[in-house]
């Protein structure tokens, strides 16, 4: 079999157009920026004062047109790749686009539904009014769906090593491939002759699995401690702020090196930290429900009991382990729903631990501001309990900045996970997650860049998507 080219049979047609569009786009953008410094003066046109279209405007128009062309050609590559028969004609991009078909379909359905019903969807719907927000959301959902369908998309097992494929360039055909094995390494092979493309796709799952959950837990800890600290101020605030600043003064990497080593995992310290950190969602939920329904004791008892039963079971399953050597074995085996492997737990705990002080500070700051509002005073005058005021009057009004920060923080958590992988901490060295793969690839970076490049670009695009999404949300939530 022949090795694949990047663009297959679409190449001769689209490549020149693509390069041309990029060149023209760069020139137009530069011209526009330079020309905008020589702004024209407004002139009388008829009896209205108006700006004549300046050269900068024309350059802007050209830039916009060229950008449209670039998008069109990119779409051409992807759609053309879907339609053409056979990997040789599709090229690498086309074949990848074909592998990603479930993702494209899901994205199309999601966007079609969301845009149709956007007026009924609140803040989420408003996101579709902002281009930046939509682009960010698109990129994020692309990776979420990719992670979700990872097993379907990946062409090879992420750990299988095929002989003769070590450090091969993207698109290399596998010589003497068996039937049923995909015939190419789409993005080449790494230094252990594993498929870079499959590792990249499965790495998305590793990241999507940990980052949002860790962020949720960090928010739970930050909110549960930050709201009372801001509301009561005083000694509680002083103590908690001192602790938060203490953790923040630690260089993150030093903390990781101290916490995420096999030796520390052996001492069981991460499990104890998990015990403390993971109980916060439980406390938060109980207080939340209790403060809302304490006037209807019967209903309150039922709902709090139900919440505690479900949450408690999840909590205990999370921290207790079936492993006979484990530190905490509270639940009997049949009741323990799932086991989190020690190295994932320690990564999870340390990421939550690093993030929660920052969330605490943000929440505290917002609450300090909001508690002086009239509606808080009104609730206090009504005789509402302190926790009701905090969780049902103040917190909902703090949601705007918190949602925006949540998106940013998932991105930051992704970067932290990558950092951990980059230093070879926590996750197993074979794990396909992006940080570890970058770490693997960096030793031969100047000779074979492709094994490190694929995960690096993936990580960058996911974080960029999250940042754009946060920006779009900020813009839309400020609008009203």
């Amino acid at each position, binding site marked *: 079999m022949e090795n694949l080219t990047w663009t297959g049979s679409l190449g001769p047609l689209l490549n020149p157009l693509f390069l041309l569009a990029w060149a023209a786009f760069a020139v137009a953008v530069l011209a526009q920026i330079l020309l905008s410094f020589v702004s024209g003066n407004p002139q009388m046109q008829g009896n209205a004062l108006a700006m004549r279209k300046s050269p900068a405007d024309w350059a802007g128009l050209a830039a916009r047109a060229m950008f449209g062309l670039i998008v069109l050609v990119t779409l051409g590559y992807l759609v053309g790749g879907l339609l053409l028969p056979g990997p040789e004609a599709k090229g690498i991009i086309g074949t990848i686009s074909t592998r990603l078909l479930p993702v494209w379909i899901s994205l199309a359905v999601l966007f079609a539904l969301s845009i149709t019903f956007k007026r009924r969807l609140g803040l989420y719907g408003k996101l579709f009014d902002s281009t930046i927000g939509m682009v960010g959301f698109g990129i994020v959902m692309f990776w979420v769906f990719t992670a979700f369908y990872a097993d379907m998309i990946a062409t090879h097992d992420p750990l299988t090593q095929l002989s003769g494929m070590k450090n091969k360039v993207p698109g290399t055909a596998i010589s003497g491939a068996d039937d049923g094995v995909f015939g190419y390494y789409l993005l080449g092979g790494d230094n252990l002759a594993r498929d870079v493309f499959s590792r990249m796709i499965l790495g998305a799952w590793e990241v999507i699995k940990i980052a949002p959950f860790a962020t949720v837990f960090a928010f739970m800890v930050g909110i549960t401690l930050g709201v009372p600290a801001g509301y009561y101020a005083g000694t509680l605030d002083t103590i908690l702020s001192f602790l938060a*600043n203490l953790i923040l*003064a630690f*260089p*993150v990497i*030093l903390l990781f*090196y101290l916490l995420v*080593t096999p030796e520390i995992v052996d001492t069981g310290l991460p499990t104890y930290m998990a015990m403390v950190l993971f109980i916060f969602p439980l406390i938060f939920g109980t207080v939340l429900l209790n403060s809302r329904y304490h006037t209807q004791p019967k209903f309150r008892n039922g709902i709090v009991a139900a919440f505690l039963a479900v949450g408690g079971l999840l909590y205990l399953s999370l921290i207790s382990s079936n492993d006979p050597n484990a530190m905490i074995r509270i639940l009997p085996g049949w009741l323990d729903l799932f086991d989190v492997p020690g190295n994932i737990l320690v990564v999870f705990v340390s990421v939550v631990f690093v993030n929660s002080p920052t969330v605490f500070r943000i929440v505290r700051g917002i609450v300090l501001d909001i508690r002086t509002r009239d509606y808080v005073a009104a609730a206090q005058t009504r005789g509402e309990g302190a926790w009701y005021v905090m969780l049902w009057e103040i917190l909902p009004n703090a949601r705007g900045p918190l949602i925006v920060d949540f998106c940013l923080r998932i991105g930051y958590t992704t970067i932290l996970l990558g950092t951990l992988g980059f230093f070879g901490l926590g996750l197993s060295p074979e794990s396909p997650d992006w940080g570890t793969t970058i770490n693997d690839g*960096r030793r031969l970076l*100047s000779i074979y860049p492709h094994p490190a490049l694929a995960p690096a*670009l993936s990580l960058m695009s996911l974080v960029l998507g999250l940042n754009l999404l946060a920006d779009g949300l900020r813009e839309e939530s400020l609008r009203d």
Partner: protein
Amino acid sequence: MGQFLLRRVGMMLLTSLALTFVVFFLTNLEPNLEKIARSEASARMTEEDVGLWLDRNGYTQPILSRYGQWLGVLPGWTRTDGNGEVTGRCIAPDMAAGDAPTFCGVLQGDWGTSTVFDTEVGALVWDKLALTGKLMFWVMVLMVPSALLLGILAGMREGSRLDRSLSTFSIASTATPEYVSGVLFITIFASSAVGLKWFKGTATSAAESANFENFFLPVLTIALYGMGYIARMTRASMTEVMTAQYIRTARLKGVSFRNIVIRHALRNALIAPFTVIMLQFPWLLNGVVIVETLFNYKGFGWTLVQAAGNNDIELLLACSVVAVFVVLVTQLISDVGYVFLNPRIRIA
């Protein structure tokens, strides 16, 4: 002001004490000590030998008293073995036991010995800090002016095309962690396979003689990540200033746009970024660790990784003292500087 400074310095001392104790505690946990024993003496020791080795080297005393010895507030341990030979914390191998000082801790200026590098920790850390200082200096030279320029250009006309493109650039740069941009730069500029081969992919040689070829990529990599954030803060501050009443007054008086930006807006717009730049230092420390590892530049960050990877307790403690010091001092400077720049704020 004096009272404020005093309180802050007190807080700093308290924080450093707490943090070093945490580091001390974590590095002295049972499995870590066992690791040290095995790497220092012999990898194939039995459990018993490990225990003996630890006992002989003073690792088995209660943790608080050892922390006190490290600090220099408790006398260093001594120990007489079967042959009547006296060993101890403060007794160097070629020193008579009687000549040794009683106290040898941080307060006496003795930072201990590094087990990885086999040298005095104090001197080692200073050397490495000098190297990292060189890196940081060039990072600042590159990052601060370009970030401020980006922010001011973007913020002077909010919503313009220039603003949009520069803001997109800032977002992209904050979304690119050092280990990603470093990999990209090495691929593009230094890779021998596909790259332009303009620069070198390693900065090891920059420790002795830094030049543009071997030093630019690491500097750029660190600067880029911080740049986006500072630029965004500058932009936010600049847009706020540009909507202020006195800017409108100046406009209505007929002052040209250029003069408004340079004479009237700039000074007020630069107050907020000052704080941000100061608070960026701790983050830069992070970047330094990553970049020094990636480019193999043997400075402070690289040392920290070596120390942490080999559980070199005393070196690690010294590194964390330095790191904490950097964080807290920059916080202090940013608070005090804020007052000087903004006369409306008074510190009680």
